[in-house]
């Protein structure tokens, strides 16, 4: 009997010890602290703050990008420690709907906000007149190509139209069957839906019309998907490729083109260990259907938010201002290629004279918000688009049927 009592006591102690929390810290969540290219900067941002604020220490709680929204929602609902977070701009609506975000204009000086950010950037973080997001980095998802591979394949000019693009892909494929001419994302909803939307726009189609009706099954959309599937059928793109796969394959020097955000050259440096990757990566405008069309790109960016669960909004606000501050913003740009939005950093010659950043600016000029992003159910809509496009790619549905199903599911999702 004594033995059993001992076991039970031990278990009780164990269980109790589980419930005793550690010393209280403020928590910053996101994904950049988990990725090799950005991790050192996140650590630096924390270290510089923590050194000066012994009474308000911040700690990082991170997840991979693909899990962040899910974990953020779960965590913000559970009353667990969570003060500030990094978010993808397209999650803002969902988080606003969940009513977990603090209106930053109530905790930050309005003059500071207006003095440091351009109006349009601030507006991107507003919902119903509340400043829920603080812009951190903003650019677009564009296309990049591998100049050295293209040269080997005999492609002399950067393709500007779909026809030229197809010719370039064919040339790459003929160069070496091991090459993936275009590492389009075909796997996770987080990337695939957005990338596909850019092609939809290129074909003059879209997910919604101006009145909010679902038009993803329009003739031009079907034409677009049919074309996209033809890329797979001709061996130009592959199934089961995520953005991370694309980056990794790109670093192996077996990819001709792919879609990514502005900091992809920084990632390539990290992945290859090379100091200078200019010969291997170059941004380009997305090919257009007919000469004279506007090349499409989707706006992309990260924001910082404060959560209502914060225990110290004063320090949380000061911490956010610390993170977006000029010096760190410039550092973040130099180290990881994250384009700053804070005025002083934008105007700094380091950014102004950067060749890569200037090239990317030409892409961002055409940037538009992803069409699912205004919806609280953005993640669900992205999943639907991804799944139906995949179904068409794999031939289990015709492009028409897949997009009809997508339209029906999107309507169901937003109606209820």
């Amino acid at each position, binding site marked *: 009997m004594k033995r059993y*009592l001992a076991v039970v006591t031990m278990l009780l102690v164990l269980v109790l010890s589980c419930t005793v929390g550690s010393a209280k810290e403020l928590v910053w969540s996101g994904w950049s602290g988990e990725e090799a290219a950005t991790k050192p900067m996140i650590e630096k941002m924390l270290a510089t703050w923590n050194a000066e604020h012994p009474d308000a220490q911040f700690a990082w709680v991170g997840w991979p990008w693909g899990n962040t929204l*899910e974990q953020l929602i779960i965590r913000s609902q559970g009353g667990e420690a969570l003060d500030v977070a990094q978010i993808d701009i397209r999650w803002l609506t969902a988080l606003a709907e969940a009513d977990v975000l603090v209106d930053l204009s109530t905790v930050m000086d309005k003059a500071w906000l207006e003095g440091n950010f351009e109006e349009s950037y601030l507006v991107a973080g507003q919902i119903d007149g509340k400043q829920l997001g603080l812009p951190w980095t903003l650019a677009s998802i564009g296309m990049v190509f591998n100049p050295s591979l293209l040269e080997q394949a005999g492609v002399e000019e950067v393709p500007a139209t779909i026809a030229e693009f197809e010719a370039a892909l064919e040339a790459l494929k003929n160069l070496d069957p091991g090459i993936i001419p275009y590492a389009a994302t075909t*796997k*996770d909803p987080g990337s695939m839906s957005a990338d596909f939307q850019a092609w939809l726009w290129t074909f003059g189609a879209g997910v919604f019309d101006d009145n909010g009706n679902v038009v993803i099954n329009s003739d031009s959309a079907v034409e677009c998907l049919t074309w996209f599937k033809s890329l797979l059928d001709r061996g130009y793109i592959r199934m089961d490729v995520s953005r991370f796969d694309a980056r990794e394959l790109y670093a192996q020097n077996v990819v001709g083109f792919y879609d990514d955000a502005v900091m992809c050259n920084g990632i390539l440096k990290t992945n290859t260990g090379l100091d200078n990757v200019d010969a291997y990566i170059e941004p380009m405008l997305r090919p257009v259907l007919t000469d004279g069309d506007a090349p499409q790109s989707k706006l992309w960016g990260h924001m910082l938010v404060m959560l209502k669960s914060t225990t110290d909004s004063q320090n949380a606000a000061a911490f956010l201002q610390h993170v977006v501050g000029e010096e760190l913003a410039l550092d973040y740009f130099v180290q990881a290629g994250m384009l700053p939005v804070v005025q002083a950093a934008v105007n700094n010659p380091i950014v102004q004279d950067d060749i890569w950043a200037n090239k990317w600016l030409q892409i961002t000029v055409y940037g538009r918000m992803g069409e699912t992003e205004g919806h609280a159910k953005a*993640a669900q809509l992205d999943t639907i688009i991804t*799944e139906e496009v995949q*179904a068409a790619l794999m031939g289990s549905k015709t492009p028409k049927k897949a997009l009809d*199903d997508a339209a029906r*599911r999107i309507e169901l*999702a937003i109606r209820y």
Partner: protein
Amino acid sequence: MKRKVHSGRKLTESQFGFLLALPALAVFGAIILYPLLNSFAMGFTNQSLLRPGRQYVGLLNFERIFLDPNILQVFVNTFVFVACTTAFSFSMGFIWAMVLNQGLRGSELLRGITLVNWIIPGTAIGFLWMWIFNGQYGVLNALLRGLGLIQENITWLGRPGSAMAAVVIARAWQTLPWYMAFLLAGLQAVPYEQVEAARIDGASNFGVFTRIVLPNMKFIIFLILILGVIGNLQHFDIIWVMTQGGPAQATTTLAVEVYRRAFQNWELGVAAAIGVLWVLLISIFAFFYIRNLERDS
């Protein structure tokens, strides 16, 4: 302790017995029965992960489910996954058990190593098979190319049929040792005299198998098949690691679908409604299970 003994004396035999079952009863009620009933109720509300509180919405969630063009596919996927993994893993496990039961030197050791597969964490198993099925550097492609069976690499996880096959093979690999262990124990309990007698009557291997082995192991086969089906119906982690239910929902089973609806779409009500349909479906199954058990005992 003393006091307990005294108070024990005062209790009647059946009161004491009931008292022993009480902790289990409490745990069962709190974290199994109540959640089940509450999740049922949730299926008729608009409960969301984003907002507290819920309103009764009648059959709206069910209407949404039935209007979804892909819902049938989820049920079909579940059926295919459960049937294939159970059948494949069971038969491989059975053959492996019979092979190891032949008493070859080293069988004991092989049995031990086989069991290791069962305790490797499911997540790690998912990683392993993802790597084997990898479209670019996977060993399966290399082997098939080496044998001249394919010319170009196949992206196994990027096509509906092969993605399902891949998760089935991975899951079957995980459970094979479990079937083997039970079946081996069952084989060893088959009375040897009966086998001998059959041999004297001139029975072939096949005859011994169908006339002696199978009848003797009827109960255990029934039991592990039921448990296998239940386990596979619940299964989540290997699928989640390898495909997250994709591509295009080709490997989305009920477990994955409920999880996605609840924690990625935040619609707890709809997720619960699918759960209701699921439980209704397995009740049919449960009915036979219990009836059979009762008859046997």
